[in-house]
């Protein structure tokens, strides 16, 4: 497997001032994002199963990153509508890590509080909170808290399903906690001090 040091990754990026946003997103993305290689062909936007609900197609987001349009990108719902299906990733002729770039944009939007619709970010935050509390996901807690806050009306419709899941033993009212919670907390606390740049 080809490996790239961060110096090599950086060398692929031009240091022009107006490319700093693209650079920042690329460096913050897991692996070697290859974001700078986008040729604007649109195979990502064409592939996206949830593309019709996006403010901008992924391709447009990449063009906006190049243009340094920080606020517009971080306010876009595009990364939040991404369903992580990886169709765009396997079809991208430049092998850009598109899905992972979407994750980076979400994280940046949360950090800078730029997102517009709060439902998705808060769902993610709740999920992460549960994992950090118990070490495992806790669907019942997650679902009830999420729906109560963001979709109280939908809660009615969902209740039937949730009840079904509970009845069939597919959802537990009690969370499971791992034994090494202290260890996990220590790891995550240390990890939160660091960022990939």
């Amino acid at each position: 497997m080809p490996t790239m040091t961060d110096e090599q990754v950086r060398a692929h990026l031009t240091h022009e001032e107006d490319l700093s946003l693209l650079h920042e997103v690329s460096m913050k993305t897991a692996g070697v994002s290859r974001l700078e290689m986008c040729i604007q062909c649109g195979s990502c936007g064409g592939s996206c199963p949830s593309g019709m609900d996006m403010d901008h197609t992924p391709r447009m987001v990449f063009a906006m990153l190049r243009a340094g349009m920080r606020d517009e990108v971080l306010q876009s719902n595009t990364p939040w509508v991404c369903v992580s299906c990886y169709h765009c990733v396997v079809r991208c002729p430049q092998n850009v890590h598109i899905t992972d770039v979407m994750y980076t944009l979400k994280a940046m939007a949360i950090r800078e509080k730029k997102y517009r619709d709060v439902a998705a970010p808060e769902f993610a935050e709740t999920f992460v909170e549960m994992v950090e509390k118990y070490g495992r996901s806790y669907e019942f807690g997650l679902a009830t808290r999420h729906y109560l806050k963001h979709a109280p009306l939908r809660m009615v419709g969902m209740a039937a399903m949730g009840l079904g899941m509970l009845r069939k033993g597919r959802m537990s009212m009690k969370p499971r906690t791992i034994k090494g919670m202290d260890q996990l907390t220590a790891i995550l606390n240390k990890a939160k001090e660091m960022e990939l740049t």
Partner: protein
Amino acid sequence: MSTNNGKPKVGVYVCHCGTNIAHTVDVEQVRDWAAQALGAEGVVIARDYKFMCSSPGQELIEKDIKELGLERVVVAACSPHLHEMTFRNASKRAGLNPYLTELASIREQVSWVHTDKGLATEKAKAVVAGAVERVVKNEPLDEIKVPIHPATLVVGGGITGIQAALEIANAGYKVYLVEREPSIGGHMAQFDKTFPTLDCAACILTPRMFETGMHPNIELLTWSEVTQVAGYVGNFTVTIKKKPRYLKEELCTGCRICVEKCPKKVIDHVYEAGIGYRKAIYTSSAQAVPKFPVIDTANCNFFQKGTCKVCEKSCPTNAIDYEQKEQFLKVDVGNIILATGYDLFDARRVSNYGYGRLANVFTSIEFERMCNAAGPTSGKIVLRDGQTTPKTVGIIHCVGSRDRNYNNYCSSICCMQSLKFAHLVKERTGATVYDFYIDMRTPMKSYDEFYQRVLEEGTLFVRGKVAQVSDAARNAQEEGKLIIQVEDTLVGKQRRIPVDMVILSTGMQPRHDAKEVGKLFGIGCSSDGWFTEKHAKLDPVATMTEGVLIAGTAAGPKDIPASVAQGSAAAARVLNLIMRHEVTLEPIKAIIKQWQCSGCRICNGLCPFNAISFRAERRVSEINPALCQGCGTCVAACPAGAISGSGFSNDQILAQIDGLLMDVNPVSA
């Protein structure tokens, strides 16, 4: 040799290159240091000059050679790739063997890439010291001359090979044209129209094919392959395998009665691109050159089951010969032109476009055959059912090209090919045509005008790489159609466009056996797999092996005009050599000191140019200087130290290392 401290007299010339060098390197300091510190190494004079490559600069050197009796020259200036020849020639004019002059690169490798003047100056000194130590060990070399055999081998009977063969044959020299298919014509013979002028491919190609077949100076060897290449520029001996046609060419009149009578119909994957049929005994088409059919033994009833012999019975001249065996010919030629062409990208690999799964997805070559009046549908554009005329057609560019998952390069012809298809569909069916492109590339003469013509005709262009072609309908409108899903990047929205037919503009890729063919002829391939030119811009038809030229799509994707131009260019290069009668070779060669060779044969397997041979009777290995390309791999490999490399000898390189490290190794200095 007059001596100076036991060493030849060396002159050192340090160039300012205006301020290019002087800005970062203290030129005067280097000059003074060379004169003093390198005095013991043989330096008798060190000078600096604003522009050494200027006439006065060169004259400075010439004057010193004559007046001071310099025996070696070091010019510290730019890269040897720029001015090595300049200064070698200057030395030569002054009566010094040109190979006794060395360039020390202190511009590209020092002043342009470093910023600290102190460190750059120190490095420049080291580079100069390396060159001085090296040049002392240089030996005078003489150029090598070899005669040229006037015959030429052209491999590949497509339009490029045909062009090259005709150019040389018309100049009065013998050509052997080898083609592995039963007839010549190549891909072009399959096409219907050619862009941008829309001439019919057959109309312009067929006369050339006939001329080639009839030419007194061209010996046509179809259904044949080169199996062995020995020798070197001017003097190749080539072995050619003639596969059996199972038919005596001298008796065959080309009447094609056997073809008509043959009861076995098979899908023609070559000429008809898999959408038409041929017989088990066949010629690619009625106009095939040569006219002789060939028996496809894998499908022939007689060869498979032992009965039939209809062709033999029906032949009016008794030309059929089931006993025929393959033959091997040896020919002597002075030059070789490889015009081996390309393979079409296998569209099945792009599984999201559905070729092979969805019936009405076609490749460009299938579509070419479909459009061709002599093709399987007699020129009618129809769906896979063979009947229905499409009402909506989608054409997809860049299939397998410009994509790291397949071929990373632009195939260069697909844009124009797609535009041609769009025009043909419109003209013949009146269908709605969608054309999906990433970038429209129409850079040659009259190409963009053709694009405009197709725009005018009403083709609907969508800028976007198609994401998928599917038959999974989401609504009634899509039912029964192929749905092309794409981001229309100019709108910024995803679109789903239902069509009846999809044409994939598949790209070109290197022949599947290009690597082995390259090896056979001693030339290399790029990482993409195309044959590598000697120089991509300035020497595009030559290769690293003297006497082996490449032309057409064997060296990379090209359209017909560019391929033909390269065929002519390669022919011109060949004629140039033939008419000079001899060729001069660089004297950078490996030589085996016969008295030191132990005959261990370790070097024997190392030469890709087959320059090394083992003399069994004397139990030593020998290098043919005309075949040797001077890479030096055998020099580095000889365990007995019996191979020396002129121009890059161990003595020269070890001395250079000494010089380069003079400042850090007080012991050796």
